[in-house]
């Protein structure tokens, strides 16, 4: 599927990728063209990779927020079967900024929880641009509890600018809701695999992120505050977000170096938004590999593994 929205810096790559896609359509009937097409595709992929190799951290932030990027439900459609969405926190309401439920991953029952951004204005209002309220986190909490009781792996999908800062969110205890998610994830005696699909915005992302393995897509980001927020605090100027993005070390490559993520999942040429199917295949493979690693650990081993993973993060002089 072609992305209608094109960032200035991705233009050459978008053109290249769509040319190849057109050729592939044309050649569908003619199998003789297949080897030639393969060669062309490989060449285009290499070129796209080269063009994107020099992207600045701020450009990667823009890619992580690209409106054509696949969101949690797009991945659910492609990597899960028998998905039953479960709604509500049983206390206040249902938060559409978080989607959750039961499903099968490669035939195996799992619990899934993901941030969900909207596509288009109307859907974005419904999804609150992927910024959850406490009831969203309490829905996640309910899922973590159910997964623990039924010994089901938890797959989470992170893609949020952050937890919503608003009156209702504070009234209903945004802080406690996020803290409670961390506590529940810490205790869950099951494998937890978190995948950062796009934006990993602060505590609102971490509430889905205390996992045994944390994967990040190639153009995903994860930070303690948005670059705009950082810039407005440091320089009283939100427009210096590009500079802030570089200083905060928030790209996938930075995160891997800092030990905050365990693995980078390659995106298709031009980014995940250029090919949702291919991106989903990459994510599925990475999750499956992580699950295999974790399956050898028992319930207590999983809790201990997760504890050790986060316990060692940080830098200080002793």
């Amino acid at each position, binding site marked *: 599927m072609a992305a209608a929205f094109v960032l200035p810096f991705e233009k050459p790559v978008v053109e290249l990728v769509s040319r190849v896609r057109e050729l592939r359509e044309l050649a569908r009937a003619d199998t003789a063209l297949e080897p030639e097409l393969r060669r062309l595709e490989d060449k285009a992929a290499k070129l796209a990779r080269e063009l994107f190799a020099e992207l600045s951290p701020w450009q990667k932030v823009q890619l992580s927020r690209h409106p054509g990027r696949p969101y949690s439900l797009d991945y659910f459609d492609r990597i899960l079967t028998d998905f039953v969405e479960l709604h509500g926190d049983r206390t206040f309401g249902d938060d559409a900024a978080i989607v959750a439920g039961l499903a099968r991953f490669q035939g195996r029952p799992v619990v899934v929880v993901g941030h969900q951004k909207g596509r288009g204005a109307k859907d974005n209002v419904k999804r609150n641009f992927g910024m959850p309220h406490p009831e969203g986190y309490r829905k996640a909490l309910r899922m973590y509890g159910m997964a623990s009781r039924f010994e089901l792996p938890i797959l989470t999908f992170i893609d949020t600018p952050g937890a919503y800062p*608003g009156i209702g969110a504070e009234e209903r205890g945004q802080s406690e809701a996020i803290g409670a998610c961390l*506590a529940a994830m810490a205790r869950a005696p099951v494998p937890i695999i978190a995948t950062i699909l796009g934006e990993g915005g602060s505590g609102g992302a971490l509430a889905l992120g205390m996992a045994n393995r944390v994967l990040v897509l190639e153009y995903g980001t*994860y930070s303690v*505050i948005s670059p705009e927020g950082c810039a407005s605090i440091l320089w009283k100027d939100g427009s210096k977000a590009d500079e802030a993005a570089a200083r*905060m070390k*928030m790209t996938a490559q930075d995160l891997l170096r800092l030990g905050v993520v365990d693995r980078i999942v390659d995106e298709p040429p031009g980014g995940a938004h250029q090919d949702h199917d291919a991106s989903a295949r990459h994510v599925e493979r990475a999750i499956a590999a992580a699950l295999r690693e974790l399956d050898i650990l028992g319930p207590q081993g999983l809790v201990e593994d997760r504890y050790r993973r986060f316990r060692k993060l*940080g830098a200080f*002089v002793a």
Partner: protein
Amino acid sequence: MPWPEKKSPEGDAAEKKTLGKGVFRKCDGCGETMPSEAFSANFEVCPQCGQHHKLAAGGWRALLLDDGALDEWDAHLEPTDPLEFADGKTYPERIAAAQKSSHAREAIEVGRGSLDGHAIAWGSFLFAFMGGSMGSVVGEKIARLFERATAERLPVVLLQASGGARMQEGILSLMQMAKTVGALERLKDARLPFVSVLLHPTTGGVAASFALLGDVNLAEPGALIGFAGPRVIEQTIRQKLPEGFQRSEFLLSHGMVDAIVSRLAMRRTIATVLGHLTKTSKAD
């Protein structure tokens, strides 16, 4: 992530004026001008109106710990600069300035003490050090506090005053939230009490990790407690926030804290709670 407000409303802004011989101060609550000793002798609570002004770490020790004595743990941990962060000044420069002005190595002190005869593991944020922000050292000291309390079977009393995560350590600051809550859950597994004391202000990454997960959450009157800072919320929703929003009283009425406790009653209240939760009867 919400960020430490540049200056807390009450903060350290208590006005100091020299009138005649003695030093006088004006109360932030009632506006009355009184000799400084009138405040300091009363742990910075206004004798007239009960307004709670900021109390430094030493004052808290004197107020809550027997003989004001703390056997400090991990005092040697110092911050480093994992991101090589600079914003006009480098992070090491900011650390040096904070260490000089606060006479502390980092934004928290932890250790062992006793409170009305109860042996406790103690933690107390130093707001004067970079707004009590939580970076790697604060996270590490809190994780070790929970771990050591678990090993030595001590209840934890933790006093929070923090603007949240420390931006200069970026994503590693965020990770401290997971690290500390993980350690807290071990304390809970060992069925040891966690008394969380919320002071002004407790926001951001500290609020959204262990702060509201106490077995008992006690708040000082009028403390600002919340996930997002008021400025961030106002900018997001484009309206003025109602009076008293995110203050202790607001949290009490919304079910987020167990009780609002005056500073002058804090020691007695914590001791009573610890007595109930540790099943010991005090003989004296």
